[in-house]
């Protein structure tokens, strides 16, 4: 991508001509900002993170483009929901994405193309406990506090 910006005869519309983008365009989603976001996430997953078997699909209930892929060969399929960061989302939409049956990653795309991924799971997921090893501070804490006064 940096090479394209150096060349004078580089087409500024390389995104529009990219086959993956054209495939997404063909799914006929009205929200072009969401399609653009989906494309950026697609490039991140395939080129940067090297995910396998990344494909795009249209979600009729949400009217957005979803991406599906595997982190590694043989890993389970995950759904990625790309959205522009200024958009709003309802809990209902999240449930519809989860209804597809795969683990869902929400990806927020900022205006500078920064990508932020968030895991969404159905049900109550207990957080990981704090990692050890634990050291009993004992009197050290109280000694420190007394020194301050």
């Amino acid at each position, binding site marked *: 991508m940096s090479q394209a910006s150096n060349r004078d005869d580089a087409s500024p519309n390389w995104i529009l001509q990219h086959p993956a983008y054209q495939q997404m365009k063909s799914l006929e989603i009205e929200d072009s900002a969401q399609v653009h976001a989906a494309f950026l996430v697609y490039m991140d997953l395939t080129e940067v993170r090297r995910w396998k078997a990344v494909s795009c699909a249209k979600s009729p209930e949400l009217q957005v483009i979803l991406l599906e892929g595997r982190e590694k060969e043989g890993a389970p399929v995950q759904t990625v929901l790309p959205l522009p960061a200024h958009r709003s989302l*309802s809990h209902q939409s999240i449930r519809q994405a989860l209804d597809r049956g795969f683990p869902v990653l929400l990806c927020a795309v900022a205006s500078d193309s920064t990508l932020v991924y*968030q895991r969404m799971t159905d049900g109550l*997921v207990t957080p990981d406990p704090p990692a050890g090893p634990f050291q009993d501070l004992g009197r050290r804490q109280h000694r420190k506090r007394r020194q301050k006064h």
Partner: protein
Amino acid sequence: MDERPSSSAVAVSLCDSAPLLWRVDDLQAVRSQGLVGALLGSLPRIPRQNLRLGRPLLLLPEEEELLTERRAAAALPVYQDGEGAELRLQVKQHLEDQKRSYEEQSVLALEDRKAALLRAMTSSHTVVVLSESGDEALQSRLEALDRSFTFPSSALAVQVSTARAGLSYRPEARATLHASRPLRGQEESSCHAARYQVFRDLRGRGFYLTSAGKFGGHFLVYPGDPLRFHAHFIAVCLSLEEPVCLLDLLAVARLGSNVKKTVLLCSPGPEGRVQYTSLQWSGMV
């Protein structure tokens, strides 16, 4: 988790619109039902700190509603004091007690001074044997003390009781505690209804809930009594159709991961079931 229906109701006294519990029995009863509340009062023996607070216990609106639903709470009838007559009587009583205490204490103080004077005079007279003139001097000094001695009111010792006897119910109020009387009229709002549904569902699953103002959510969800566990979840209650800005979602999820709690999106769904979605930081840098 014991859900025994309480045989007697706890008495909730309303301070403006805040539901408060004052009696220790009521606090224990409410805790045994899995409702935590928040202590507000200062403890008389350790007043200048807010790590350990005392009664009254403030109930969350959801807790109050749950108690009402279980018919386990009733509002204490408002005590009518006709034009403050009783209060004036109490003040008069208190002033009279103070006056009596002052008179007793001044008598004792005078006796103390005389005894001290006597000791001082007799000890210095062991060497000099002056019988009559010595006695006369002593007498005159004692009489002078009698005349001139005043007990300053600033030296008055006042007893303050740290165990208040007045927090038990008046007998007539106790008799009229009906559990069937509704606490007060509830204004329904969709967000309030959503929060109450979520509260009831999570409480029914055995979790303990407290308010989560410090973490930007609605409730903190503990797997057991908050005195024994750290919270596992920050519950954010919203209706299924309510749109939430993506940036707010990211902010609360990031906060949750910083404090090692999972953010829980809770929405009451169809058929009274509540839908939960856990948000976790993906860790994908």
